[in-house]
């Protein structure tokens, strides 16, 4: 597909029209910052905690989580306070699981879930 380009330093990375990386291997910290920037988010430590958590979820369970499973995973890994929807919505407004997956360089969560 490759309908758009994300500028990361000198690199030009292909993203799909919803802003997901075309090639997941392109992901690194700078790419995450650029992906977040495209969404109007400046990444701070609290964002990174969630980004690492959702990447860990993907490594452990081989799929990008929907909101409910992500919340439960964060509750176990980072504690109940950080698993609250309000908290996650503040960091990743709108649809936290989708947005965090995008910035974390994960594939788009499955359609069926």
């Amino acid at each position, binding site marked *: *597909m490759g*309908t758009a380009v994300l500028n990361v330093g000198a690199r030009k990375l292909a993203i799909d*029209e919803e802003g997901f990386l075309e090639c997941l291997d392109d992901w690194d910290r700078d790419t995450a910052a650029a992906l977040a920037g495209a969404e109007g988010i400046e990444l701070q430590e609290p964002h990174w905690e969630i980004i690492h958590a959702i990447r860990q979820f993907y490594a452990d369970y081989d799929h990008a989580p929907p909101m409910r499973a992500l919340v439960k995973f964060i509750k176990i890994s980072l504690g109940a306070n950080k698993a609250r929807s309000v908290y996650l919505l503040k960091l990743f407004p709108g649809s936290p699981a989708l947005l965090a997956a995008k910035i974390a360089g994960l594939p788009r969560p*499955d*359609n*069926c*879930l």
Partner: protein
Amino acid sequence: MNYALLVLSPAHSSQGARSALLFARAAVARGHKIERVFFYGDAVHAASALIVAPQDEVDLTSEWATLVADNGTELLVCVGASLRRGLLDETEAKRYSKSQYNLHPAFEIAGLGQLVEASQTCDRLITFS
């Protein structure tokens, strides 16, 4: 009674899809309602508008379409299973920048939740595999 059918059998290369159709007709004839037929896995191919059946063989897709027209049955194909197998409607084609789409108008693309919902609301759920 209200029925839901889950069809898993590959359309055209197995008998299950046709068995489901015959069952649906017989159930309607006995006064039942087939609320929803959910096509999953390789069964989604039954919903292709591009199927060409030989003149003297059953055209499964249009027979399903007739069931919809006569009884208001919902024919749903799972979105995830369909996308992987190249079965798209106009919306999905647009979303994934594909130039063509091929879902027969009698069928709708749906989420698995709609199968689960049917299992809850219908009196009977029969799986054809």
